[in-house]
């Protein structure tokens, strides 16, 4: 019975930052769920709130200036947003692990990789030196680092970007977490190295039956790795769909515009790129209406005054738009 329920369920999350210039409305009522063994992707441009959403769930938002104004994040029935710092510390890395974007700065430069890899094993599992060494060797082999015994003694600067990201993944895996949150793990890497990391995460996920949340702005990577996709814009979830549906039949004007703006390596027809006019809205202004309204070619009065809720547009497919873009009619 436990397996049928989603492993993580986020309800109406709202995160704000109170800064000198005013209040930044970073996340505005985001709800989603993650099933056992599923990979979902959270996509959006910089500043859309995808990282803040995950950091809010993980209790990594500095309060103040941050404020979690509302919401629930149920992990195996427990609300992560209500846990104390100690309880959260116990959970982080053990049940839910994170891999960060920048493999260059995520490590402490003055400690060896082996020491940093062993830390969660010592803290979370109380393992002794010998066991730590053995598990570290196994993990390094699993993530494809050759000569693991030697490499464990190395310092971060002796690793290349791709190797550091492998070491990060090894670190995330050491307590066999049930959820892996990967925040733009391949953005800083070259395409050939990115391909290696994507393949690695896919293999590990199948072997360990993990659930993965992959945060990215790259719609190409999403097509490769995700089963279900959540599209965010200016702190709102604007569309949610299974991966095939999203690419074949995007229902939100933003998703449509984003897909049309992409150049494609597999197409040779040279046509002008469809650019989206303007820029994302200022998050310092309290949102009224749809956040995409100023850049949307279909916008009408209702869009300016009221934010559309996520509306069911198909099986497992929701979009937050007042317009049914396939028929051109208002909902």
């Amino acid at each position, binding site marked *: 019975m436990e397996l049928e329920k989603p492993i993580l369920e986020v309800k109406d999350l709202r995160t704000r930052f109170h800064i000198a210039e005013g209040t930044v409305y970073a996340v505005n009522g985001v709800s989603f769920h993650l099933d056992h063994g599923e990979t979902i992707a959270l996509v959006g441009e910089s500043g859309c709130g995808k990282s803040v959403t995950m950091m809010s769930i993980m209790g990594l938002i500095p309060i103040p200036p941050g404020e979690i104004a509302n919401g629930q994040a149920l992990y195996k029935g427990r609300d992560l947003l209500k846990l104390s710092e100690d309880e959260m510390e116990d959970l982080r890395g053990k049940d839910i692990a994170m891999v960060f974007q920048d493999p260059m700065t995520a490590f402490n430069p003055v400690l060896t990789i082996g020491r940093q890899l062993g830390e969660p094993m010592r803290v979370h599992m109380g393992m002794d030196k010998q066991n730590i060494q053995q598990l570290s060797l196994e993990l390094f082999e699993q993530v494809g680092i050759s000569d693991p015994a030697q490499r464990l003694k190395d310092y971060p600067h002796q690793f290349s970007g791709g190797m550091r990201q492998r070491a990060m993944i090894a670190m995330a895996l050491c307590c066999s977490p049930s959820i892996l949150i990967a925040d733009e793990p391949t953005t800083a890497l070259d395409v050939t190295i990115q*391909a290696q990391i994507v393949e690695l995460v896919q293999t590990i996920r199948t072997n360990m039956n993990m659930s993965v949340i992959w945060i990215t*702005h*790259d719609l*190409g990577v999403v097509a490769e790795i995700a089963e279900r996709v959540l599209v965010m814009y200016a702190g709102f979830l604007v569309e949610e769909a299974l991966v095939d549906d999203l690419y074949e039949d995007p229902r939100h004007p933003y998703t449509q515009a984003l897909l049309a703006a992409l150049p494609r*390596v597999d197409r040779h027809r040279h046509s002008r*790129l469809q*650019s989206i006019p303007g*820029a994302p809205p200022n998050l310092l202004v309290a949102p009224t209406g749809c956040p995409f309204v100023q*850049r949307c070619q279909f916008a009408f009065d209702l869009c300016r005054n009221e934010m559309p809720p996520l509306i069911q547009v198909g099986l497992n497919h929701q979009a937050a738009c007042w317009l049914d873009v396939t028929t051109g009619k208002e909902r």
Partner: protein
Amino acid sequence: MTDAQPVPHPTTPPLVQVVQLKKHFPIRQGLIFEKEIGSVKAVDGISFSIQRGETLGLVGESGCGKTTAGRTILGLYPITAGQVIISGISLESASKDQMKSFRQKAQLIFQDPYASLNPRWTVSAIIGEPIRVHHLLPDVKARDERVHELMLKVGLSPRLINRFPHEFSGGQRQRIGVARALASNPEFIVCDEPISALDVSIQAQVVNLLEDLQDEFNLTYLFIAHDLSMVRHICDRVAVMYLGVIVELADKDELYENPLHPYTQALLSAVPIPDPKKSRARKRTVLPGDVPSPSNPPSGCRFHPRCPVGIERCKIDIPEWREITPGHWVACHLVMNPEIL
């Protein structure tokens, strides 16, 4: 639009000619009795030419030397060996006056729109700088008018002329960078990853702008990028670099549909396609390992330690740079001598 342009006639002399260009950076050791203990061979003998009005793409992974190549071509680094000739002026033997005219004709658009604009200067000072430096318009009023005109050209409101860079978004800053590059009426612009730092929806705006300007002013671009999808979109021909050398150069459609070098093949197969069905269906070559250090490149073919099809000979002999079909150049033993496979 680029495709509406006449195809550059092959008999006209190319605007840009690069011959066996090398750029090595010395590695020094010691404080007082400094001695050279080696060199980073960032660019190690590349040759190509660009026709007027053409866009040549230079792609490769980080550290392959593509940015160094672009900067050396513009004379921003002293050349170690080889030749660069732009619009009839040879970079090596140019006189002071010729060098000035060279710098006016060849411009650069930078990757990072945040670091490449002086934060203490107004937009007017930034865009006006090349006009001042090259004494193009001595009259202050005329200069202001020209800045106005340039801002309109790149899609910025001239009302913002006295603003500072921090008041602009990334995409707008890149437009300022483009306007600055245009200010001296250049013929040739090196675009060094001009869109890598921008979001997808903004990337398309800047790329369309670059294409429009090319049509209007008959500009010639060297487009340096690691995003192979964008390169296919914007370029006419593409050169693929690996560890300081060009391994393949061809017409863009030829290169993307019929890549011959194993590195190009692997690179293309690693590019994610935003279409889940296609992406599941295709076969991938995942290259093992990382790019080796350019201070000590592998012997023979530089790609051999990572090459999925390499043979014994690749470890010893440097493959020759040869034209396989008209306009399609490649350096690989296996492509040239298929019988040894």
